[in-house]
């Protein structure tokens, strides 16, 4: 490579320019896709990669999807080496070649300047259906991948700008919903916008200058990450968390065990002691585990660090094949993304003794439901993931309350509620309520984030409901004297009066119209002793209905008048003095 003088200003502009492109790609997807999972909830990521598949920048609405795009890009670059042309498009979802989840289907587009391959643009979103035994995916009875999904190893669907109709038809002949074709077109469109923008940027800078400044960006980012890691005391730390119920054996438990080694600007996450894989679909893939690890760790370092190859370079992740977090072919793995919350718990438990000021208390674990059926108004099939219902509270930190209704740590507030009115347009259901759940937050000097309660009336007969998630056994844990959050549940109240609580991994058929669906997403864990929370803050939260009069007295030792919500200072002081 020719000698290029590094312009430090240009390095930072390049970093921002790349992010501006991935943000625009994300907006393309949000605005042109059709499934509410994508255009309302933003369950997708966009990214740019260099010719070798190294991450240049990403927009990570759902980070758990994010950190597999780079490895898949490298896989495609190697598999199709010498056979990549301008105008090509590749699809991929295969979990045994670095995919993270079957429903997360990616489109990759190579970027050329003249004859030279200079990079890749990619978009990956959660598709409304991906074949397999259960509409919408999440077959809790699956024992192997074919019962879950159509496998799409890296395949070329466009070559030199021309659609390969045979390949396209083969794929979509195996997927139930026509909307998926349209949403994959939106992914291609998003990648095309990334291709246009990155090409224009490189043409403006010149390839040699781009490459040199890209390397400078990687190097400075790596140094930044290394400095962050160096600020954690060197040593070896262990943490553990429990996964409850594998979808097949009620009462089953599996342990995630992580050993974290911090040494000289590098950090290693070793999952070798984790339990063996299950015989159901509660299994992770290497990249879903790597994503869970990276996204949890990123919350403990400077949030402004750029997301490129240099950021991940100092991080090493070891996940032996055959474990719960990296199941061997041909295991079922659809639940793998949702092992992120307990995985995060294990990492937080390992590091909280050494960097208590950087961690949060426990986050609410995901519990989710997916409803499908035929909308009687239009006689059309709908698929809805109830994002608004699943978003509980985050854990508090040493100096801040947790975030209310943020949702699982795998998204950390990047995935959004569907708008209520769009929900009633796209499904036949009628929303009854969606409100903060009183007393759901773990009490503490800083309380956890609040959870929510969601109620809706099911609007189609013969509705199919799939549940997947956790958080019905162990609540989000408190830290340093803070209390736990509340548990999750889903309950169906049938028109005939029966009330049913599905398991956390379940598949219900034939749910009739008129059934009331009730879901509680719990709050996050508190941080520090609740008696240290200022009494007037607690009284204000009682007035606002976030904390009950009883909980104020019981957990916070604060006395509030139930009529006027006035703080009884004297009674509070007395009550608080009773405790050592």
């Amino acid at each position, binding site marked *: 490579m020719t000698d290029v003088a590094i312009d430090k*200003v*240009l390095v930072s*502009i390049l970093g*921002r*320019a790349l992010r*501006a492109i991935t943000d625009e790609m994300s907006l*393309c997807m949000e*605005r*042109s*896709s*059709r499934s*509410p999972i994508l*255009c*309302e909830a933003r369950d997708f990521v966009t990214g740019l990669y260099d010719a070798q598949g190294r991450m240049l920048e990403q927009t990570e609405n759902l*980070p758990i999807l994010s950190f597999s795009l780079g490895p898949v890009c490298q896989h495609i670059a190697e598999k199709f080496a010498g056979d990549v042309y301008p105008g090509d498009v590749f699809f991929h979802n295969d979990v045994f070649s670095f995919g993270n989840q079957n429903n997360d289907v990616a489109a990759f587009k190579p970027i050329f300047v003249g004859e030279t391959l200079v990079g890749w643009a990619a978009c990956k979103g959660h598709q409304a259906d991906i074949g397999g035994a259960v509409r919408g995916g999440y077959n809790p009875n699956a024992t192997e991948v074919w019962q879950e999904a159509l496998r799409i190893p890296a395949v070329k669907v466009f070559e030199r700008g021309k659609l390969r109709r045979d390949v396209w038809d083969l794929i979509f002949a195996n997927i139930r919903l026509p*909307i998926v074709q*349209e949403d994959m*077109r*939106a992914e*291609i*469109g*998003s*990648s*095309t*916008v990334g291709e*246009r923008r990155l090409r224009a940027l490189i043409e403006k800078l010149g390839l040699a200058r781009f490459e040199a400044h890209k390397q400078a960006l990687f190097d400075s980012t790596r140094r930044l990450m290394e400095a962050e890691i160096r600020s954690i005391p060197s040593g070896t730390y262990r943490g553990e968390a429990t996964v409850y119920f594998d979808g097949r054996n009620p009462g089953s438990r599996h342990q995630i065990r992580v050993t974290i080694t911090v040494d000289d600007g590098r950090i290693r996450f070793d999952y070798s002691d984790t339990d063996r894989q299950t015989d159901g679909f509660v299994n992770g893939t290497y990249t879903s585990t790597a994503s869970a690890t990276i*996204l949890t760790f*990123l*919350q403990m370092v400077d949030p402004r660090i750029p997301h490129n190859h240099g950021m991940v370079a100092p991080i090493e992740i070891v996940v032996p094949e055959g474990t719960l977090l990296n199941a061997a072919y041909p295991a079922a793995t659809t639940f793998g993304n949702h092992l992120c919350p307990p995985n995060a718990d294990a990492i937080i438990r390992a590091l909280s003794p050494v960097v208590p000021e950087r961690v*949060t208390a426990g986050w609410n674990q995901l519990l989710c439901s997916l409803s499908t059926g035929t909308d009687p108004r239009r006689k059309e099939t709908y698929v809805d993931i109830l*994002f*608004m219902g699943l978003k509980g509270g*985050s854990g508090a*930190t040493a*100096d801040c309350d947790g*975030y*209310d*209704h*943020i*949702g699982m740590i795998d*998204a*950390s*507030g*990047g995935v*959004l509620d569907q*708008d*209520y*009115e*769009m929900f*009633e*347009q796209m499904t036949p259901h*009628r*929303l009854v*309520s*969606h*409100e*903060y759940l009183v007393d759901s937050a773990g009490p503490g000097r800083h309380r956890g984030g609040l959870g*929510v309660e969601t109620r809706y009336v099911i609007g189609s007969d013969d509705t199919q409901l799939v549940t997947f998630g956790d958080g019905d056994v162990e609540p989000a844990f408190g830290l340093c004297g803070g209390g736990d959050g509340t548990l999750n549940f889903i309950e169906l109240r049938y028109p005939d009066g029966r009330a049913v609580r599905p398991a956390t991994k379940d598949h219900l058929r034939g749910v009739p119209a008129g059934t009331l669906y009730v879901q509680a997403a719990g709050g996050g864990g508190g941080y520090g002793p609740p008696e240290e929370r200022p009494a007037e803050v607690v009284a204000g939260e009682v*007035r*606002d209905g976030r904390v009950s009069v009883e909980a104020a007295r019981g957990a916070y030792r604060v006395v509030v008048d139930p009529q006027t919500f006035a703080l009884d200072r004297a009674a509070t002081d007395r009550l608080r003095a009773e405790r050592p």
Partner: protein
Amino acid sequence: MTAASSQITYQLGIDVGGTFTDLFLWSSAGEVRTFKSLSTPRDPSVGVLDGLGSIARALELELREFARRVTTIVHGTTVTTNATLTRRGARTALLTTPGVRDALEMRRGIREDQYDNRLQNVEPLVPRYLRLPVRGRLDARGAEVEPLELEDVARAAELLTREGVKAVAICFLNAFANPAHEQAAAAELRCRLPGVFVSVSTDVLPAIRFYDRVSTTALDAYVGPVLRDYLGALTERLAGAGFTGSLLIMQSSGGVALPEATARRPAGTLLSGPAAAPRAAAAYSVPAGHTDCLVVDMGGTSFDASLVRGGQVELRAAGDIARLRIALPMLDIVTIGAGGGSLGRVDAGGLLRMGPESAGADPGPACYGRGGDLPTCTDANLVLGYLDPDFFAGGDLRLHPERARAAIERHVAAPLGLEVERAAVGMYRVINANMAHGVREITVKRGLDPREFPMVVAGGAGALHGSAIADELEIPVVLVPPVASVLCAAGMLLTDQQHDFVRSLLGRLSELEPARIAAVVGELCAHGEELLLGARVPADRIDHQVFLDLRYVKQYHEVTVPVGRADLARGDHGPALAAFHREHDRLYGYELSQEGSPVELINVRVRSVGRSDKPVLPRVAAGGHSADHALRRRRRAYVADRDGFEEVPVYDAHALLAGNVVSGPALLERTDTTIVLGASHQARVDDHGTCVVTRRTA
């Protein structure tokens, strides 16, 4: 008085900032003049009248006679912006459908920075205990499922009275499809709480998406009483002074509207203040050969930065103010707290900080001698020799250098252990860095290189700092228009009256009867025509632009494309469809015309524009290269790029002619600002009197 001069009429642009009220006067004889008066934050209309008074004096007219001759006043205001940013809006409640009161606060569960566990949610404009349920339910198509319970409104009214609520937002689920419940509740509430400002979601934003509506409506209600009181006071004072012309208010979208229309949708003024500057900047940068430019406007309190491309600022369909969603069109402008009034202080860690707190107009900088004793950016500029104490604001305001020095000594120099002059240098450098950061927000953060854009400098304090900011960002060209000090006020007279209408009309384009679309378009155009005629716009100056919001069937979001009325009348959808496919590909990277994917219509939009007479920029007489004729004296001043004080030539900028060149270091004084040139700078005056500042090549 001659017959001709007695017939001269005036148009006036008035920009009320936190510190100064800027006025731009254009006479029917073609004369352009600029004025400044101190703002009066407690009731900004007082400052407006003060300004009118000083213009009348300058024109040697009685105030009533002058006011009578003003045909149009275009006015931009920051009252709603400031109320929102400082959380000093009205005490506000929300009436909404049971079960969804928290949507306002939840903001769909977003945390803008996913990896920052210390980022807290935004305090909602309405506390939870004032978000009250009203029973009644519509389904997704607007049909009534449960009747409206007006007794809930009555009960709420009692509580709101007890709580001293001054504004109420009403937003019901699915009201976009049927406003009947909202309107009935509003009528009941207005009847029970006369004087309370009521904002109804289907009036503010009659479109689907509950969160967008509830957030925008809450903002609307929150700033409503503030704007209503202000516009009421202003129109009263203007009428009292004898003004009988049209008053037009600047909108966030870059257009203007009558006060009555503005008060009905207060949220549309959240970016009123800075919205006119980019247009004026383009008016000066385009003749100088630049269709793209950065615009920085530094007044007394705030620093606004925007980016003009192709002669225009990007209009966003929705945006945020302090992380609060507002789903109304607004120009893309970044505002930070930095201005002449920004206070300097040394923080607990020993670091020198400037702003965002401002001394404002009252008490103002220490050197004003109006009771302020804290050091501001203006005090530093005075110590640095950039301001003439006897000739500030055209000599209307005498500055007190000794007070500036005392304030800087006490609050900055002593704590830092510095000489007063070095402390002033530090203040100057810190605020320049702050403003450079604001410019980076609209360029670098969006992946644009500021070095590729000339920077148009505006505001009373802009020219003092422009060249130094440009040096920091390596921006090669700085343009200082002759009206720089009041650029925003000037831009207001370059703005057309504009009314935007939207009406939902759903259906596949191929199946909709062309006559139905044409009928809706006709109705909206008639509405626009009526409003504009009512605002005294002649019929031959009214235009209507028609747009369709189109999408592929089952998409969630629409693409807005312009259509010709003639095509619509013929029932020819071909051009609209072609435009849609093309725009979809441009925006989203693909289009589906080959696949025959059906296209549906969502909304019909009409923009009715009343074209105003716009001032023609006066030209400056041509001169030679030399500017010696304008050299007045020398003054000791700080030269930033040599980091020292020197005797610097001072030029009378009003005496400069087109083609004159001044090499730095130098100060070019105008009555309302000073252009500071460093040692490496050179300024050339162009045909319109714009100073084009570049770095001298060796």
